[in-house]
């Protein structure tokens, strides 16, 4: 190894830029593409539930896990216990998992 090659190693920065961009953009494209769908789902599901039960907006969690073969849409609705008891459905939250 001579002095010149030492300099060259430090200067090879373009491959780093390329890799950082690929990782970052893969993430950003997924987030930006997904957010609209999830926001819409959240709003509409909340509206349907609110017709029948009084729910706290923050008590509804919607997650989308993308897998290779199947994606999982997870809807987690926390129903207040007073209402749950009144309807005879037991206590605590209820959640449903549906393959998307």
């Amino acid at each position, binding site marked *: 190894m001579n002095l010149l090659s030492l300099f060259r190693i430090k200067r090879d920065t*373009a491959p780093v830029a390329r890799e950082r*961009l690929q990782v970052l953009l893969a993430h*950003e*494209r997924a987030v930006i593409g997904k957010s609209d769908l999830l926001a819409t789902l959240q709003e509409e599901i909340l509206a349907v539930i609110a017709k029948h039960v009084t729910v706290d907006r923050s008590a509804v969690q919607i997650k989308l896990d993308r897998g290779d073969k199947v994606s999982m849409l997870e809807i987690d609705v926390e129903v207040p216990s007073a209402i749950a008891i009144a309807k005879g459905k037991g206590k605590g939250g209820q959640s449903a998992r549906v393959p998307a």
Partner: protein
Amino acid sequence: MAKVLVVTSGKGGVGKTTSTAALGAALAQTGENVVVVDFDVGLRNLDLVMGAERRVVFDLINVVQGDAKLNQALIRDKRIDTLSLLPASQTRDKDALTEAGVERVIGELREKFDWVICDSPAGIERGALLAMRHADVAVVVTNPEVSSVRDSDRIIGMLDSKTLRAEKGERMEKHLLLTRYDTARAARNEMLKTEDILEILSIPLLGIIPESEEVLRASNVGAPVTLNNPNSAPARAYFDAARRLKGEQVEVVVPLERKGIMSRLFGRRVA
């Protein structure tokens, strides 16, 4: 049939205005009827780069709001008679642009010209959205640098979702214009290569404009670089890009600066 073209990038300072002026002039120099429209309301600069800053009387906002006729606001270039400029307002802000007003003005420009080239402001807000709204073709100006590539990716996403064409389900034609490219640094792996950027952004390449002192020289004197020094490396690259916009098949090469013996001997002066 007129074509509306938007020159956009997301990031500022990558060469949108320089490229608008150079592409507009290059197309006009080949006999096409061209108007360049400055959408950067409040921070207009296309007039300065085109050397028409002292001839602005009415602007885009005046026409959009119906205070002036389109013909009163259009400035005919003194060097090429098929080139016109519609300047932006310097005293107003982007909220003065209305969607209906912009639609009407673009419609009128389509009647008069072969090419309507819209110089977008930086950013992803109202001004940039209105500039791309009616476009048939987009030129995405990108520097071989991480932040510019990231912002271009964002703008490409918006071109595919927020334009009229995208909303109608039609194809939005997009081209990459790589500016301030340094072949030697890319070869030494110090700068992102063209193929890296093309792979990341996956849109076709319109041209590669080499980093050049000629660009500043041209803007200093208020002339598009294709007019100021048609034989310079960036001018030749813009001429090639303009031919590709017209649908010609032109092989992509990065033109090299033709250096005289003195500059070869003494290299580049730094200060």
